């Protein structure tokens, strides 16, 4: 019989459909995994409600549970429990290494409004556009290394 740990380990291998450097576990969208006999109940908290990748994420979770020989029951929880603070430390570092400035913690963002360039680390950056290639990203420009970069929005 499958264990919750095995399910979590398998979920760590599922890449985010739009930012594949991070997994769904890194993204913090899996709130709980509950194994009962051969049924696996998963609470999945969407990131942005309009994100077109949500269906793909849900299907990946279901397929992964089936590959482990269990029956999936993926519950989409549209409450307020996901924020960018749920992205793990490992997830933030993977984002930064791939050139996406990770979202600042909500408390820090609200107080400081500082945005750091993921390439050179400079905080001398300016907003180019609040919106970007997907709803979760803004476009900023680094005056230090003269590079535009994508900033994951803090929500």
């Amino acid at each position, binding site marked *: 019989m499958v264990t919750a740990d095995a399910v979590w380990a398998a979920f760590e291998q599922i890449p985010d459909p739009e930012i594949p450097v991070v997994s769904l576990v890194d993204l913090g969208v899996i709130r709980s995994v509950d194994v009962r006999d051969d049924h696996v109940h998963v609470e999945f908290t969407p990131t942005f409600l*309009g994100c077109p990748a949500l269906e793909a994420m849900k299907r990946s979770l279901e397929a992964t549970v089936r590959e482990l020989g269990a029956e999936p029951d993926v519950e989409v929880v549209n409450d*307020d429990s996901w*924020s960018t603070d749920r992205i793990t430390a490992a997830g933030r570092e993977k984002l930064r290494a791939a050139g996406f400035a990770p979202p600042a913690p909500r408390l820090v963002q609200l107080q400081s409004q500082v945005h750091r360039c993921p390439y050179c680390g400079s905080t001398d950056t300016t907003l180019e556009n609040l919106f*970007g290639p997907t709803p979760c990203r803004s476009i900023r420009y680094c005056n230090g290394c003269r590079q535009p970069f994508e900033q994951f929005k803090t*929500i």
Partner: protein
Amino acid sequence: MNEQELLSLADDELIIGWRDSEWTGIAPMLEEDVAFSSIAQNEIGHARALYELLTDDPDALAFDRKPEEYRHSALVELRLTDWAHTIARRWLYEVADEIRISALKAELPLAAKIDREEAYHRLHAEMWHERLKETSQFRAAVEELWPYALGVLPSAQRRTLAARVGLDDEQPPAPRLLDSPEFAELHEEMTMVRRSAPAGAQW
């Protein structure tokens, strides 16, 4: 909030999403192409999550009704083709939307989630409001759309909206444009894919 009010909110989000998406590809600057597309995507996502509270088949609720069965406000159904009016609507809509979403947060956890995303819509609207507020075109657009904006909210919340935007709520809200072809045309367009694949399309 009762089911009719929830449906009105969901319909507003769906229709403003469609209207905002009309700027995709033709906005006055590339940044706004991107911004309006993202905002539209968010609003339609909010509509879907709200419809899911009312039904197991959100596509059917969104697209299988007749035009007269929709419960959105007149403000969102207007077809606006100039930038001053478009920004005036975005700004008025976001201020009104914040008032009703904030009031809903305590009873509806989804409202708090929606509000996190709306915060960026408000920043965008405020930025444009700052930029345009002294221009005569923008002021005229706000004045023209104001009776429509009053119709977004129930009467109890209109005074708060009037105070936030600095206008008066003494006039009655503008009614829906039920005799005008504006919404019928939008409805025809937005239900086209659904009608062409009634069994549900797979992408």
